[in-house]
């Protein structure tokens, strides 16, 4: 009996070690508007979860809570084993250095060139000083996203797809363990969307990251998702693989895949 308990506990610990983000009963309101009602989600190491849902359902709010940009009203949110709301400023800063966030617009610093955009986190967050090492990192990461030639361009000179790639490069340069993508293919043509989706998978394999990807783009979801979580009215109503969800009898879920 005792052996069984020890074995179960060991299995549970192994599962816990594997979980990089654990969200339980998360709630968030803005005034009277209850955006997140009861969010429960686990992201495992090396996993890509796609969050699908109509606009205004709380998808972006969820990842902003994970990144510590918004403070949840209630519930538990553990990132890499740490409860986000209990972290001090310095602890949150340290945690964020292990998190990458790709904004919908790319959010590139428009007064800086691509090189300066990539240097910024290296000098400010990693406090790197060795110029040769920094230059090498910049070249590596730009090569990974296929944009070596854009190194001295300003964001205003780049196309939408290129900006997303540079945004992705800036996220990857800190070698994060988890990446949060906020609609990575929004506003792109179908060919570029596909390229970005394939790039996400390629980079996830290369850098061994875990990701939460918010998207409305079913083609993107099919390419990148290990698991899909469908959000409706402030909670997840279904999770499963792409194939499982396309066969769901639930009309609401099925509508996303039509």
């Amino acid at each position, binding site marked *: 009996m005792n052996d069984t308990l020890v074995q179960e506990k060991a299995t549970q610990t192994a599962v816990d070690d594997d979980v990089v983000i654990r969200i339980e009963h998360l709630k968030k309101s803005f005034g009277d508007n209850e955006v997140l009602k009861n969010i429960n989600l686990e992201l495992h190491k090396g996993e890509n979860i796609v969050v699908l849902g109509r606009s205004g359902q709380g998808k972006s709010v969820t990842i902003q809570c994970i990144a510590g940009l918004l403070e949840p009203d209630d519930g538990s949110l553990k990132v890499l084993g740490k409860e986000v709301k209990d972290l001090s400023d310095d602890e949150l800063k340290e945690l964020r250095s292990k998190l990458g966030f790709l904004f*919908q617009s790319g959010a590139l*610093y428009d007064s800086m060139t691509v090189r300066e955009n990539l240097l910024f*986190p290296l000098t400010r967050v990693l406090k790197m000083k060795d110029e040769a090492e920094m230059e090498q990192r910049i070249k590596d990461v730009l090569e990974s996203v296929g944009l070596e030639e854009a190194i001295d361009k300003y964001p205003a000179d780049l196309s939408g797809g290129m900006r997303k790639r540079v945004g992705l490069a800036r996220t990857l340069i800190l070698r994060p363990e988890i990446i949060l993508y906020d609609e990575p293919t929004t506003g792109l043509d179908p060919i570029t969307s596909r390229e970005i989706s394939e790039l996400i998978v390629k980079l996830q394999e290369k850098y061994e990251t875990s990701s939460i990807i918010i998207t409305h783009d079913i083609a993107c979801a099919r390419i990148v998702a290990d698991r899909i979580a469908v959000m409706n009215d402030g909670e997840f109503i279904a999770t499963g693989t792409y194939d499982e969800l396309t066969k769901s009898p639930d009309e609401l879920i099925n509508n996303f895949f039509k």
Partner: protein
Amino acid sequence: MRTIMASVLTSAFNKYMEVVGDQVVFTGQFARNIFRDGFEWGEFLRQCYIVGYRSIGLVAITGFIIGFVLTLQTQPTLKDFGAESYVPGMVSISIVREIGPVIIALICAGKIASSIGAELGSMKVTEQIAAMEVSSANPIQYLVVTRVLACTMMLPLLTIMADALALLGGWVGVNVQEHVSMALFFRKSFNALKFSDLLPSVVKTFFFGYAIGFVGCYKGYHSSRGTESVGSAANSAVVSASLWIILIDAIAVQVTNLIYY
């Protein structure tokens, strides 16, 4: 009717107190981040260049014209009273004590506070500030501390330059009707000035500069989402900074009078 009035006033008061609270918190963040994790010298010097060097033209022309016009306006009146020789002294005291610092600060509020408000507002709208926060960089230190300190350091220098050019403008103004040597004009100007005229007027420009930088950063950093808020941040930055300048000037005059007179 009375209940509606009370509720409107309470709501307005609460909103005002929220803004005051936000500003206090923002001041605390600014102070805490001045030397945290090193100082952003590169960005600070870049801001000094933008705030100081790029304002030289506007401030120089404004300063020169203030002195020139002030002389042209006052000279005939003083002439009527046979007090024409007091023109340099009157011009220098008016310019150095009050007109120079206040007008230059108001001009800079229009140019610099609006530009900072719009720049930071636009960075907020396009999620660049959130991107800095989420990547563990320190946006307050990089964006706010550097801009506020650059304004605080540059405004006194711009004002001193404008004051000098205003005196030059005054000398040109005098020479429109009569001939007065530059040496004589400047000697009479400086003879009329006392240490108690110079020091307080320079000290208050540090506060004007701080107000311009702080208000510009606060309005931009706290602009809401949407492009309209960028314009609104720029606009309210100018209005608020101008009001602060007038208020600080009123306080500075009282403090100066208490200390020196």
